[in-house]
Protein backbone atom coordinates (compact mmCIF):
# COMPACT_ATOMS: atom_id res chain seq x y z
CA UNK A 1 0.00 0.00 0.00
CA UNK A 2 1.22 3.40 -0.89
CA UNK A 3 0.84 6.32 1.47
CA UNK A 4 -1.19 8.94 -0.28
CA UNK A 5 -0.90 11.75 2.21
CA UNK A 6 0.95 14.50 0.39
CA UNK A 7 4.05 15.86 1.98
CA UNK A 8 2.81 19.43 1.95
CA UNK A 9 4.48 22.27 3.77
CA UNK A 10 3.93 25.96 4.38
CA UNK A 11 4.78 26.97 0.80
CA UNK A 12 2.05 24.74 -0.58
CA UNK A 13 -0.52 26.10 1.83
CA UNK A 14 0.58 29.61 1.00
CA UNK A 15 -0.08 28.99 -2.70
CA UNK A 16 -3.48 27.56 -1.80
CA UNK A 17 -4.28 30.63 0.29
CA UNK A 18 -3.21 33.01 -2.48
CA UNK A 19 -5.43 31.17 -4.89
CA UNK A 20 -8.48 31.46 -2.64
CA UNK A 21 -7.84 35.19 -2.19
CA UNK A 22 -7.56 35.74 -5.95
CA UNK A 23 -10.75 33.77 -6.60
CA UNK A 24 -12.74 35.85 -4.16
CA UNK A 25 -11.06 39.00 -5.44
CA UNK A 26 -12.40 38.25 -8.91
CA UNK A 27 -15.84 37.93 -7.34
CA UNK A 28 -15.52 41.36 -5.75
CA UNK A 29 -14.18 42.92 -8.93
CA UNK A 30 -17.04 41.46 -10.98
CA UNK A 31 -19.54 42.68 -8.41
CA UNK A 32 -18.63 46.29 -9.05
CA UNK A 33 -19.84 46.20 -12.62
CA UNK A 34 -23.15 44.42 -11.99
CA UNK A 35 -26.11 46.66 -12.57
CA UNK A 36 -28.94 44.49 -13.89
CA UNK A 37 -30.14 40.93 -13.80
CA UNK A 38 -28.82 40.51 -17.31
CA UNK A 39 -25.42 41.50 -15.96
CA UNK A 40 -25.75 39.00 -13.17
CA UNK A 41 -26.96 36.06 -15.22
CA UNK A 42 -25.45 36.64 -18.63
CA UNK A 43 -22.65 39.07 -17.88
CA UNK A 44 -24.64 41.70 -19.80
CA UNK A 45 -23.88 39.81 -23.05
CA UNK A 46 -20.59 41.65 -23.17
CA UNK A 47 -17.80 39.08 -23.14
CA UNK A 48 -15.31 38.45 -25.94
CA UNK A 49 -15.25 35.03 -27.58
CA UNK A 50 -11.90 33.90 -26.21
CA UNK A 51 -13.10 34.45 -22.64
CA UNK A 52 -16.38 32.62 -23.14
CA UNK A 53 -14.59 29.95 -25.17
CA UNK A 54 -12.11 29.17 -22.40
CA UNK A 55 -14.88 29.31 -19.80
CA UNK A 56 -16.90 26.95 -21.97
CA UNK A 57 -14.20 24.34 -21.88
CA UNK A 58 -13.25 25.03 -18.28
CA UNK A 59 -16.82 24.47 -17.09
CA UNK A 60 -16.46 21.03 -18.62
CA UNK A 61 -12.95 20.41 -17.28
CA UNK A 62 -13.97 19.41 -13.80
CA UNK A 63 -11.70 17.37 -11.61
CA UNK A 64 -13.97 14.36 -12.01
CA UNK A 65 -13.19 14.60 -15.69
CA UNK A 66 -9.45 14.92 -15.13
CA UNK A 67 -9.14 12.17 -12.53
CA UNK A 68 -11.60 9.99 -14.41
CA UNK A 69 -9.93 10.34 -17.79
CA UNK A 70 -6.51 9.62 -16.28
CA UNK A 71 -8.10 6.52 -14.73
CA UNK A 72 -9.52 5.59 -18.14
CA UNK A 73 -6.05 6.13 -19.59
CA UNK A 74 -4.64 3.63 -17.11
CA UNK A 75 -7.47 1.19 -17.75
CA UNK A 76 -8.04 1.48 -21.51
CA UNK A 77 -5.03 3.33 -22.88
CA UNK A 78 -5.16 5.41 -26.04
CA UNK A 79 -8.78 4.44 -26.78
CA UNK A 80 -9.76 7.00 -24.16
CA UNK A 81 -9.25 9.67 -26.83
CA UNK A 82 -12.67 8.72 -28.20
CA UNK A 83 -14.25 10.61 -25.30
CA UNK A 84 -12.64 13.74 -26.69
CA UNK A 85 -12.05 13.45 -30.40
CA UNK A 86 -15.27 11.81 -31.42
CA UNK A 87 -17.26 12.23 -28.24
CA UNK A 88 -16.92 16.00 -28.00
CA UNK A 89 -15.40 17.88 -30.93
CA UNK A 90 -17.98 17.17 -33.68
CA UNK A 91 -20.85 18.12 -31.37
CA UNK A 92 -19.08 21.31 -30.28
CA UNK A 93 -18.61 22.31 -33.91
CA UNK A 94 -22.27 21.54 -34.58
CA UNK A 95 -23.31 23.69 -31.62
CA UNK A 96 -21.28 26.64 -32.85
CA UNK A 97 -22.23 26.46 -36.49
CA UNK A 98 -25.80 25.17 -36.53
CA UNK A 99 -27.38 25.70 -33.10
CA UNK A 100 -25.92 28.97 -31.94
CA UNK A 101 -27.57 31.27 -34.53
CA UNK A 102 -31.01 30.49 -33.13
CA UNK A 103 -29.98 30.00 -29.50
CA UNK A 104 -28.21 33.32 -29.31
CA UNK A 105 -30.31 35.02 -31.98
CA UNK A 106 -33.55 34.34 -30.11
CA UNK A 107 -32.11 36.28 -27.15
CA UNK A 108 -33.12 33.64 -24.66
CA UNK A 109 -31.18 33.38 -21.46
CA UNK A 110 -31.34 29.64 -21.05
CA UNK A 111 -31.99 26.42 -22.90
CA UNK A 112 -35.26 25.74 -21.05
CA UNK A 113 -36.40 29.26 -21.89
CA UNK A 114 -35.65 28.47 -25.51
CA UNK A 115 -37.80 25.34 -25.27
CA UNK A 116 -40.70 27.41 -23.94
CA UNK A 117 -40.56 29.74 -26.93
CA UNK A 118 -40.02 26.97 -29.43
CA UNK A 119 -42.57 24.53 -27.99
CA UNK A 120 -44.62 25.33 -24.90
CA UNK A 121 -44.63 25.72 -21.15
CA UNK A 122 -44.85 22.05 -20.18
CA UNK A 123 -41.69 21.40 -22.21
CA UNK A 124 -40.01 24.27 -20.43
CA UNK A 125 -41.04 22.94 -17.04
CA UNK A 126 -39.99 19.38 -17.73
CA UNK A 127 -36.60 20.45 -18.99
CA UNK A 128 -36.06 22.97 -16.21
CA UNK A 129 -36.91 20.47 -13.50
CA UNK A 130 -34.84 17.64 -14.91
CA UNK A 131 -31.96 20.02 -15.47
CA UNK A 132 -32.16 21.49 -11.98
CA UNK A 133 -32.25 17.99 -10.51
CA UNK A 134 -29.24 16.81 -12.49
CA UNK A 135 -27.34 19.99 -11.75
CA UNK A 136 -27.77 19.79 -8.02
CA UNK A 137 -26.65 16.18 -8.11
CA UNK A 138 -23.58 16.97 -10.23
CA UNK A 139 -22.57 19.93 -8.09
CA UNK A 140 -23.02 17.79 -4.99
CA UNK A 141 -21.00 14.92 -6.42
CA UNK A 142 -18.21 17.32 -7.36
CA UNK A 143 -18.18 18.83 -3.92
CA UNK A 144 -18.12 15.48 -2.20
CA UNK A 145 -15.40 14.19 -4.51
CA UNK A 146 -13.32 17.27 -3.75
CA UNK A 147 -13.73 16.67 -0.04
CA UNK A 148 -12.65 13.05 -0.53
CA UNK A 149 -9.51 14.17 -2.36
CA UNK A 150 -8.72 16.75 0.30
CA UNK A 151 -9.08 14.11 2.97
CA UNK A 152 -6.91 11.70 1.06
CA UNK A 153 -4.18 14.18 0.21
CA UNK A 154 -4.20 16.63 3.10
CA UNK A 155 -5.98 14.76 5.86
CA UNK A 156 -8.76 17.34 6.10
CA UNK A 157 -12.00 16.03 7.56
CA UNK A 158 -14.66 15.53 4.85
CA UNK A 159 -17.01 18.08 6.35
CA UNK A 160 -14.33 20.77 6.52
CA UNK A 161 -13.44 20.20 2.87
CA UNK A 162 -17.08 20.48 1.78
CA UNK A 163 -17.71 23.61 3.81
CA UNK A 164 -14.57 25.43 2.69
CA UNK A 165 -15.03 24.61 -0.99
CA UNK A 166 -18.76 25.36 -0.98
CA UNK A 167 -18.26 28.65 0.85
CA UNK A 168 -15.68 29.83 -1.67
CA UNK A 169 -17.66 28.82 -4.75
CA UNK A 170 -20.88 30.32 -3.44
CA UNK A 171 -18.96 33.36 -2.29
CA UNK A 172 -17.60 34.28 -5.67
CA UNK A 173 -20.72 33.38 -7.61
CA UNK A 174 -23.03 35.25 -5.27
CA UNK A 175 -20.79 38.28 -5.40
CA UNK A 176 -20.19 38.52 -9.07
CA UNK A 177 -22.74 36.33 -10.82
CA UNK A 178 -21.87 34.72 -14.09
CA UNK A 179 -19.06 37.17 -14.86
CA UNK A 180 -17.31 36.09 -11.73
CA UNK A 181 -17.85 32.41 -12.54
CA UNK A 182 -16.59 32.93 -16.08
CA UNK A 183 -13.47 34.91 -15.22
CA UNK A 184 -12.69 32.40 -12.51
CA UNK A 185 -13.13 29.59 -15.00
CA UNK A 186 -10.60 31.21 -17.31
CA UNK A 187 -8.17 31.43 -14.39
CA UNK A 188 -8.94 27.85 -13.41
CA UNK A 189 -8.30 26.71 -16.96
CA UNK A 190 -4.76 28.08 -16.89
CA UNK A 191 -4.07 26.79 -13.39
CA UNK A 192 -5.22 23.31 -14.38
CA UNK A 193 -2.86 23.42 -17.36
CA UNK A 194 -0.03 24.75 -15.20
CA UNK A 195 -0.53 21.83 -12.84
CA UNK A 196 -1.07 19.01 -15.33
CA UNK A 197 1.43 19.85 -18.07
CA UNK A 198 4.48 19.60 -15.76
CA UNK A 199 3.10 16.40 -14.28
CA UNK A 200 2.71 14.86 -17.74
CA UNK A 201 6.17 16.05 -18.83
CA UNK A 202 7.99 14.89 -15.70
CA UNK A 203 6.22 11.55 -15.88
CA UNK A 204 7.05 11.17 -19.55
CA UNK A 205 10.68 12.05 -18.89
CA UNK A 206 10.85 9.51 -16.09
CA UNK A 207 9.74 6.62 -18.29
CA UNK A 208 12.16 7.57 -21.06
CA UNK A 209 10.12 9.91 -23.22
CA UNK A 210 7.36 9.02 -25.65
CA UNK A 211 9.26 6.07 -27.12
CA UNK A 212 10.10 4.83 -23.65
CA UNK A 213 6.46 5.04 -22.64
CA UNK A 214 5.35 3.10 -25.71
CA UNK A 215 8.00 0.48 -25.02
CA UNK A 216 6.96 0.14 -21.40
CA UNK A 217 3.26 -0.05 -22.26
CA UNK A 218 3.94 -2.78 -24.83
CA UNK A 219 5.93 -4.71 -22.27
CA UNK A 220 3.41 -4.34 -19.47
CA UNK A 221 1.29 -7.39 -18.83
CA UNK A 222 -1.69 -5.24 -17.85
CA UNK A 223 -1.53 -3.20 -21.05
CA UNK A 224 0.23 -4.31 -24.22
CA UNK A 225 0.11 -3.10 -27.79
CA UNK A 226 -3.69 -2.49 -27.92
CA UNK A 227 -3.26 0.27 -25.32
CA UNK A 228 -1.46 2.36 -27.93
CA UNK A 229 -4.23 2.41 -30.50
CA UNK A 230 -7.54 4.17 -30.69
CA UNK A 231 -9.20 2.35 -33.54
CA UNK A 232 -7.44 -0.98 -33.99
CA UNK A 233 -9.56 -3.93 -32.99
CA UNK A 234 -12.86 -2.09 -33.28
CA UNK A 235 -14.13 -4.06 -36.30
CA UNK A 236 -17.66 -5.44 -35.91
CA UNK A 237 -17.43 -9.11 -34.93
CA UNK A 238 -13.72 -8.80 -34.24
CA UNK A 239 -13.51 -6.60 -31.19
CA UNK A 240 -10.13 -6.82 -29.51
CA UNK A 241 -9.54 -3.29 -28.26
CA UNK A 242 -9.46 -2.49 -24.52
CA UNK A 243 -12.81 -0.65 -24.63
CA UNK A 244 -14.41 -3.86 -25.87
CA UNK A 245 -16.57 -1.91 -28.27
CA UNK A 246 -16.78 -1.93 -32.04
CA UNK A 247 -16.76 1.27 -34.06
CA UNK A 248 -20.57 1.28 -34.24
CA UNK A 249 -21.23 2.20 -30.60
CA UNK A 250 -18.16 4.46 -30.61
CA UNK A 251 -19.28 6.49 -33.59
CA UNK A 252 -23.06 6.43 -33.21
CA UNK A 253 -23.49 5.93 -29.49
CA UNK A 254 -20.69 8.01 -28.06
CA UNK A 255 -20.05 10.29 -31.01
CA UNK A 256 -23.64 11.00 -31.96
CA UNK A 257 -26.26 10.20 -29.32
CA UNK A 258 -24.41 10.97 -26.12
CA UNK A 259 -22.18 13.70 -27.39
CA UNK A 260 -24.72 15.74 -29.34
CA UNK A 261 -27.24 15.41 -26.55
CA UNK A 262 -24.74 16.61 -24.00
CA UNK A 263 -22.91 19.39 -25.78
CA UNK A 264 -25.79 21.07 -27.54
CA UNK A 265 -28.17 21.22 -24.60
CA UNK A 266 -26.06 21.22 -21.46
CA UNK A 267 -26.87 24.59 -20.12
CA UNK A 268 -23.83 24.80 -17.84
CA UNK A 269 -21.74 25.14 -20.98
CA UNK A 270 -24.20 26.76 -23.39
CA UNK A 271 -24.79 29.57 -20.89
CA UNK A 272 -21.18 30.65 -21.42
CA UNK A 273 -21.85 31.14 -25.11
CA UNK A 274 -25.08 33.02 -24.49
CA UNK A 275 -23.13 35.62 -22.54
CA UNK A 276 -20.86 36.46 -25.48
CA UNK A 277 -21.06 39.97 -26.86
CA UNK A 278 -22.16 39.26 -30.44
CA UNK A 279 -23.69 36.40 -32.36
CA UNK A 280 -20.32 35.87 -34.00
CA UNK A 281 -18.64 35.64 -30.61
CA UNK A 282 -21.32 33.22 -29.39
CA UNK A 283 -20.75 30.98 -32.40
CA UNK A 284 -17.01 31.06 -31.88
CA UNK A 285 -17.35 30.15 -28.19
CA UNK A 286 -17.64 26.36 -28.57
CA UNK A 287 -15.29 26.45 -31.58
CA UNK A 288 -12.55 28.21 -29.63
CA UNK A 289 -13.22 25.84 -26.73
CA UNK A 290 -12.82 22.88 -29.08
CA UNK A 291 -9.12 23.57 -29.76
CA UNK A 292 -7.90 23.11 -26.18
CA UNK A 293 -10.32 20.19 -25.85
CA UNK A 294 -8.43 18.39 -28.65
CA UNK A 295 -5.24 18.48 -26.59
CA UNK A 296 -6.58 17.77 -23.11
CA UNK A 297 -6.28 13.98 -23.59
CA UNK A 298 -2.51 14.46 -23.72
CA UNK A 299 -2.44 15.75 -20.17
CA UNK A 300 -4.90 13.20 -18.83
CA UNK A 301 -4.20 9.98 -20.71
CA UNK A 302 -0.41 10.28 -20.67
CA UNK A 303 -0.31 10.63 -16.86
CA UNK A 304 -2.71 7.69 -16.72
CA UNK A 305 -0.38 5.54 -18.80
CA UNK A 306 2.67 6.72 -16.87
CA UNK A 307 0.94 5.81 -13.61
CA UNK A 308 0.15 2.39 -15.04
CA UNK A 309 3.87 1.85 -15.56
CA UNK A 310 5.36 3.63 -12.57
CA UNK A 311 2.92 3.02 -9.75
CA UNK A 312 3.13 -0.60 -8.84
CA UNK A 313 -0.22 -2.12 -8.02
CA UNK A 314 -2.33 0.59 -9.62
CA UNK A 315 -5.78 -0.69 -10.41
CA UNK A 316 -5.56 -3.47 -7.86
CA UNK A 317 -7.79 -3.87 -4.84
CA UNK A 318 -5.17 -2.57 -2.44
CA UNK A 319 -6.23 0.51 -0.48
CA UNK A 320 -5.77 3.83 -2.36
CA UNK A 321 -4.75 1.96 -5.49
CA UNK A 322 -7.84 2.58 -7.58
CA UNK A 323 -7.23 3.89 -11.07
CA UNK A 324 -9.00 7.06 -10.02
CA UNK A 325 -6.03 7.91 -7.84
CA UNK A 326 -3.59 7.84 -10.75
CA UNK A 327 -3.05 11.60 -10.75
CA UNK A 328 -2.78 12.10 -6.98
CA UNK A 329 -0.35 9.17 -6.79
CA UNK A 330 1.79 10.68 -9.55
CA UNK A 331 1.72 14.07 -7.85
CA UNK A 332 3.04 12.46 -4.72
CA UNK A 333 5.71 10.63 -6.63
CA UNK A 334 7.09 13.47 -8.71
CA UNK A 335 6.25 16.93 -7.50
CA UNK A 336 8.42 18.90 -5.06
CA UNK A 337 6.93 21.26 -2.50
CA UNK A 338 5.64 24.40 -4.10
CA UNK A 339 4.84 22.54 -7.29
CA UNK A 340 2.74 20.28 -5.12
CA UNK A 341 0.82 23.29 -3.87
CA UNK A 342 0.25 24.41 -7.43
CA UNK A 343 -0.97 21.00 -8.51
CA UNK A 344 -3.24 20.89 -5.50
CA UNK A 345 -4.62 24.28 -6.46
CA UNK A 346 -5.09 22.92 -9.98
CA UNK A 347 -7.16 20.02 -8.68
CA UNK A 348 -9.18 22.23 -6.36
CA UNK A 349 -9.67 24.72 -9.20
CA UNK A 350 -10.94 21.91 -11.38
CA UNK A 351 -13.42 20.82 -8.74
CA UNK A 352 -14.60 24.35 -8.23
CA UNK A 353 -15.00 24.82 -11.98
CA UNK A 354 -17.27 21.78 -11.99
CA UNK A 355 -19.28 22.99 -9.02
CA UNK A 356 -19.46 26.62 -10.12
CA UNK A 357 -20.57 25.78 -13.64
CA UNK A 358 -23.49 23.88 -12.24
CA UNK A 359 -24.36 26.23 -9.42
CA UNK A 360 -24.46 29.27 -11.67
CA UNK A 361 -26.55 27.39 -14.20
CA UNK A 362 -28.89 26.16 -11.49
CA UNK A 363 -29.19 29.59 -9.98
CA UNK A 364 -30.04 30.87 -13.39
CA UNK A 365 -32.73 28.25 -13.75
CA UNK A 366 -34.23 29.08 -10.44
CA UNK A 367 -34.65 32.73 -11.30
CA UNK A 368 -35.92 32.53 -14.80
CA UNK A 369 -39.52 31.80 -14.38
CA UNK A 370 -41.42 32.42 -17.53
CA UNK A 371 -41.77 36.20 -17.64
CA UNK A 372 -44.80 36.58 -19.85
CA UNK A 373 -44.95 35.88 -23.54
CA UNK A 374 -42.58 37.43 -26.00
CA UNK A 375 -41.03 40.49 -24.57
CA UNK A 376 -40.82 43.71 -26.48
CA UNK A 377 -37.49 44.27 -28.17
CA UNK A 378 -35.05 46.42 -26.26
CA UNK A 379 -36.75 45.85 -22.94
CA UNK A 380 -34.38 43.28 -21.57
CA UNK A 381 -33.38 45.35 -18.65
CA UNK A 382 -36.77 45.17 -17.11
CA UNK A 383 -37.11 41.46 -17.33
CA UNK A 384 -36.25 40.79 -13.80
CA UNK A 385 -36.96 37.92 -11.55
CA UNK A 386 -40.13 38.61 -9.69
CA UNK A 387 -39.32 36.02 -7.15
CA UNK A 388 -36.89 36.75 -4.42
CA UNK A 389 -33.46 35.66 -5.55
CA UNK A 390 -32.54 33.04 -3.08
CA UNK A 391 -31.61 30.15 -5.24
CA UNK A 392 -27.97 30.50 -4.38
CA UNK A 393 -28.90 29.95 -0.80
CA UNK A 394 -31.06 26.98 -1.59
CA UNK A 395 -28.47 25.43 -3.80
CA UNK A 396 -25.84 25.59 -1.17
CA UNK A 397 -25.10 26.47 2.35
CA UNK A 398 -24.28 30.10 2.88
CA UNK A 399 -25.34 33.00 0.79
CA UNK A 400 -25.07 36.69 0.85
CA UNK A 401 -27.97 37.05 -1.52
CA UNK A 402 -30.29 38.11 1.26
CA UNK A 403 -28.60 41.46 1.11
CA UNK A 404 -29.45 41.97 -2.48
CA UNK A 405 -33.11 41.16 -2.69
CA UNK A 406 -35.11 43.41 -4.91
CA UNK A 407 -37.91 45.40 -3.35
CA UNK A 408 -40.63 42.94 -2.62
CA UNK A 409 -43.72 44.91 -3.26
CA UNK A 410 -44.58 48.30 -4.65
CA UNK A 411 -43.08 48.76 -8.06
CA UNK A 412 -44.61 46.15 -10.37
CA UNK A 413 -41.37 45.77 -12.21
CA UNK A 414 -38.33 46.65 -10.16
CA UNK A 415 -35.95 48.85 -12.13
CA UNK A 416 -32.89 46.77 -11.76
CA UNK A 417 -31.55 43.97 -9.74
CA UNK A 418 -29.31 43.38 -7.94
CA UNK A 419 -27.75 46.70 -7.32
CA UNK A 420 -26.46 48.75 -4.52
CA UNK A 421 -24.58 51.41 -6.37
CA UNK A 422 -27.23 52.44 -8.86
CA UNK A 423 -30.70 52.63 -7.44
CA UNK A 424 -31.78 54.99 -10.23
CA UNK A 425 -35.50 54.40 -10.64
CA UNK A 426 -35.44 56.56 -13.72
CA UNK A 427 -34.17 53.65 -15.71
CA UNK A 428 -37.47 51.91 -15.91
Amino acid sequence: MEELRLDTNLVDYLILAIYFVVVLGIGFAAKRVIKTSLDYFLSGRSLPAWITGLAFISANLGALEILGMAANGAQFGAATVHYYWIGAIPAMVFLGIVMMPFYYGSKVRSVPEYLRLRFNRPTHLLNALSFAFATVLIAGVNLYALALVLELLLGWPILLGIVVAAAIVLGYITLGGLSSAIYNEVLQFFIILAALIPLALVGLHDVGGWEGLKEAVRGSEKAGEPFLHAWEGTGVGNVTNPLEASWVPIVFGLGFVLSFGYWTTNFAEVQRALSAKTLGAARRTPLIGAYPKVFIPFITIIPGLVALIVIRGLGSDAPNMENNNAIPLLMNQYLPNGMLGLALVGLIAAFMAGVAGNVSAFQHRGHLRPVGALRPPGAQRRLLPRRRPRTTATSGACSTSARRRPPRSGAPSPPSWPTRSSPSPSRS
Partner: protein
Amino acid sequence: MADAIVTVAVTFVTKPKPIEELQGLVYGMANVEEHEPADERVWYRRPSLLGGGVLALVLALNIAFI
Protein backbone atom coordinates in the same frame (compact mmCIF):
# COMPACT_ATOMS: atom_id res chain seq x y z
CA MET B 1 -35.25 2.82 -29.75
CA ALA B 2 -38.24 3.35 -27.47
CA ASP B 3 -37.24 6.99 -27.43
CA ALA B 4 -37.42 7.19 -31.21
CA ILE B 5 -40.85 5.54 -31.30
CA VAL B 6 -42.26 7.88 -28.64
CA THR B 7 -40.78 10.92 -30.40
CA VAL B 8 -42.40 10.02 -33.71
CA ALA B 9 -45.73 9.11 -32.08
CA VAL B 10 -45.90 12.34 -30.09
CA THR B 11 -45.03 14.36 -33.17
CA PHE B 12 -48.04 12.92 -34.99
CA VAL B 13 -50.59 13.58 -32.27
CA THR B 14 -49.53 17.13 -31.34
CA LYS B 15 -50.32 20.25 -33.30
CA PRO B 16 -47.37 21.97 -34.94
CA LYS B 17 -46.61 25.51 -33.85
CA PRO B 18 -47.66 28.04 -36.50
CA ILE B 19 -44.77 29.13 -38.62
CA GLU B 20 -45.17 32.84 -37.80
CA GLU B 21 -44.34 32.12 -34.17
CA LEU B 22 -41.06 30.49 -35.02
CA GLN B 23 -39.18 33.62 -36.06
CA GLY B 24 -35.69 33.46 -34.62
CA LEU B 25 -36.25 30.05 -33.07
CA VAL B 26 -35.33 27.62 -35.82
CA TYR B 27 -32.33 27.28 -38.08
CA GLY B 28 -34.14 28.42 -41.23
CA MET B 29 -35.50 31.56 -39.54
CA ALA B 30 -32.63 32.57 -37.29
CA ASN B 31 -32.32 36.24 -36.41
CA VAL B 32 -29.21 37.46 -38.11
CA GLU B 33 -27.64 40.55 -36.67
CA GLU B 34 -28.59 43.49 -38.84
CA HIS B 35 -25.39 45.43 -38.59
CA GLU B 36 -22.63 43.01 -37.88
CA PRO B 37 -19.47 44.90 -36.91
CA ALA B 38 -16.86 44.86 -39.64
CA ASP B 39 -14.30 43.17 -37.40
CA GLU B 40 -16.59 40.15 -37.18
CA ARG B 41 -15.95 39.38 -40.81
CA VAL B 42 -12.22 38.85 -40.63
CA TRP B 43 -11.34 35.50 -42.15
CA TYR B 44 -9.90 34.02 -38.97
CA ARG B 45 -13.19 34.64 -37.14
CA ARG B 46 -15.35 32.74 -39.58
CA PRO B 47 -17.13 29.91 -37.76
CA SER B 48 -16.89 27.59 -40.74
CA LEU B 49 -13.14 28.02 -40.87
CA LEU B 50 -12.67 27.54 -37.10
CA GLY B 51 -14.98 24.54 -37.10
CA GLY B 52 -13.47 22.98 -40.20
CA GLY B 53 -9.98 23.51 -38.77
CA VAL B 54 -10.68 21.67 -35.56
CA LEU B 55 -12.38 18.80 -37.40
CA ALA B 56 -9.35 18.45 -39.68
CA LEU B 57 -7.06 18.48 -36.65
CA VAL B 58 -9.06 15.72 -34.98
CA LEU B 59 -9.09 13.67 -38.15
CA ALA B 60 -5.30 13.93 -38.42
CA LEU B 61 -4.83 12.94 -34.77
CA ASN B 62 -7.18 9.97 -35.14
CA ILE B 63 -5.12 8.77 -38.06
CA ALA B 64 -1.90 9.27 -36.11
CA PHE B 65 -3.19 7.17 -33.21
CA ILE B 66 -5.24 4.73 -35.26
